[in-house]
């Protein structure tokens, strides 16, 4: 080693500079691939969305924002946007509420914590297609949970579930919360474990009740985690497709239709490519509104750290 250090093959600084250039070179294939498959393709989708390509034969004549104007006037798309809003809000509230409850419960030094944690989290490991298949039967009005309610005398809780346009979307929310609430639980639990025990002890010494401890000290410390969870789950719900596709499809009177389904059917079943591209771009804009500020915020936070 001493010999290698005293007899460098070339000046060290030059070699280091060469290595930085090599670093940029080696990362280039990935950057190019993502550049084409993400940014290039998004650009091309925007172009298609502004073209007249609404039949099987490609027609790339420029029509401006006409497809977008027509899209926003389409009743089905208006329903989709409303469904997305309802779905996102209730899904987020469900996941955050249930996730926090589970995390706080598991944080009480419970016996069998590992078992409970695994049970709450396992739905994250299976596909939306599988869970959609299971919930499609569980919420089938003539069987599933309705039978359970009947058996325990809670007939009042029986519901037509996804066959009733008024509540169909909440059936999908139920399945989605079942699948994703373990994620918020895991995030909150990691946050709770990161809070120093001294802080809890200090609050208890000062005479705070457990409720006050959580309400005034612990919950505010979990705010950054709530933000992360809202971004991650929120962007998933804005682009939800598989679960709805497997469970209910568009539903009665488009009651469970979402832009992801509309885009898929318009493009690949209806061959209306320009309109499908326009839907996709609206979806992208919705997701970008949520994700870009978050990306900027977290990269800046990292640079300051």
């Amino acid at each position, binding site marked *: 080693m001493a010999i290698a250090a005293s007899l460098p093959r070339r000046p060290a600084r030059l070699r280091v500079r060469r290595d930085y250039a090599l670093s940029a070179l080696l990362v280039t294939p990935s950057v190019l691939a993502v550049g084409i498959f993400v940014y290039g393709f998004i650009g091309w989708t925007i172009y298609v969305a502004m073209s007249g390509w609404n039949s099987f034969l490609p027609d790339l004549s420029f029509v401006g924002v006409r497809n977008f104007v027509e899209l926003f006037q389409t009743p089905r798309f208006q329903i989709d946007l409303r469904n997305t809003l309802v779905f996102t809000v209730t899904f987020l509230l469900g996941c955050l509420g249930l996730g926090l409850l589970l995390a706080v419960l598991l944080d009480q030094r419970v016996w069998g914590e590992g078992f409970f944690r695994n049970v709450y989290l396992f739905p994250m490991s299976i596909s939306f297609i599988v869970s959609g*298949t299971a919930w499609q039967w569980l919420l089938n009005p003539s069987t599933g949970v309705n*039978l359970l309610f009947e058996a325990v005398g809670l007939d009042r809780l029986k519901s037509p579930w996804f066959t009733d346009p008024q509540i169909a979307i909440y059936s999908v929310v139920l399945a989605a919360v079942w699948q994703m609430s373990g994620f918020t639980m895991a995030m909150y639990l990691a946050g709770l474990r990161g809070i120093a025990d001294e802080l809890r002890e200090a609050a208890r010494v000062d005479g705070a009740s457990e409720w006050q401890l959580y309400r005034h000290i612990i919950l505010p410390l979990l705010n950054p985690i709530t933000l992360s969870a809202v971004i991650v789950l929120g*962007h998933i719900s804005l682009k939800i497709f598989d679960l709805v596709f497997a469970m209910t499809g568009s539903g009665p009177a488009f009651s469970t239709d979402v832009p992801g389904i509309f885009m898929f059917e318009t493009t690949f079943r209806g061959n209306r490519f320009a309109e499908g591209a326009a839907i996709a771009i609206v979806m992208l804009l919705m997701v970008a509104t949520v994700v870009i500020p978050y990306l900027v915020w977290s990269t800046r936070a990292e640079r300051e750290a």
Partner: protein
Amino acid sequence: MPRLRVTRVLMYLLLIALALFYLLPVYVLVNNGLKSFQEVSLSRMWEPPSAFRLDSFAKAYARLAPNFRNSVLLVVPATILAAALGSINGYLLSKWKFTGADVVFPLLLFGMFIPYQSVLIPLVQFLQWLGRTLDIRLYGTIAGLALVHIVYGIPITTLIFRNYYATVPTEVVEAARIDGAGLLGTYRDVILPLSMPGFVVVIIWQVTQVWNEFLFAVTITGNPARQPVQVALRNLAGSQIIEWNVQMAGALLTALPTLLVYVFLGRYFLRGLLAGALKG
């Protein structure tokens, strides 16, 4: 303190009730998958089978087996290559920050959040074009789907590895540099031997993602014989003529590989999950 004991009992009751809620779909899938065809009835969904019968599983497996094979052929290359690229990128973007590296990284990251609908039309056109003009058959094939999963997997695998390598002290890399090791030598001799936990997290993440993915699969592979298992399950479950106990057995079989990964390697699965929230 009796009051405390009462709250603890209530707490356990709540934990158990919630656990039952999470296990409900599993019970229904297993219970009805194990029934004989004569015993299956919508009105007796919750009653246990009088005898365990594997007929439904056999029938579901007979239909899904070729697609299982497709999914395995898809997952293996898509995971290995995406993990390898992620490891190299993560190393470069954390230990060899060239000018512009801080711009490249968030631009890469954005790729893991986009709705894939926004790239789907050009993607299909591009893969078809490759087949038409260069005779590279990627549209409609598992190889094409694997390529897609590799490219769109780069952002998350890079993120996980970058966060993982950030925990390796820079001094270690600098010491190797003083010893005369270059960029590649340092990776091979210092970074790679430390990378095992990172690879476990990334591999588990990517296997789960690729196995479970549906949108790319259904648009890129049209021919039923070439489809991955999720698409085949969807066709099975959406069919009016397939008995529903076979659908449930099929759903369980499709879920089994990732479920087993989760049961045995849940700790690492969780780490990948949390990395998705950008906090390594």
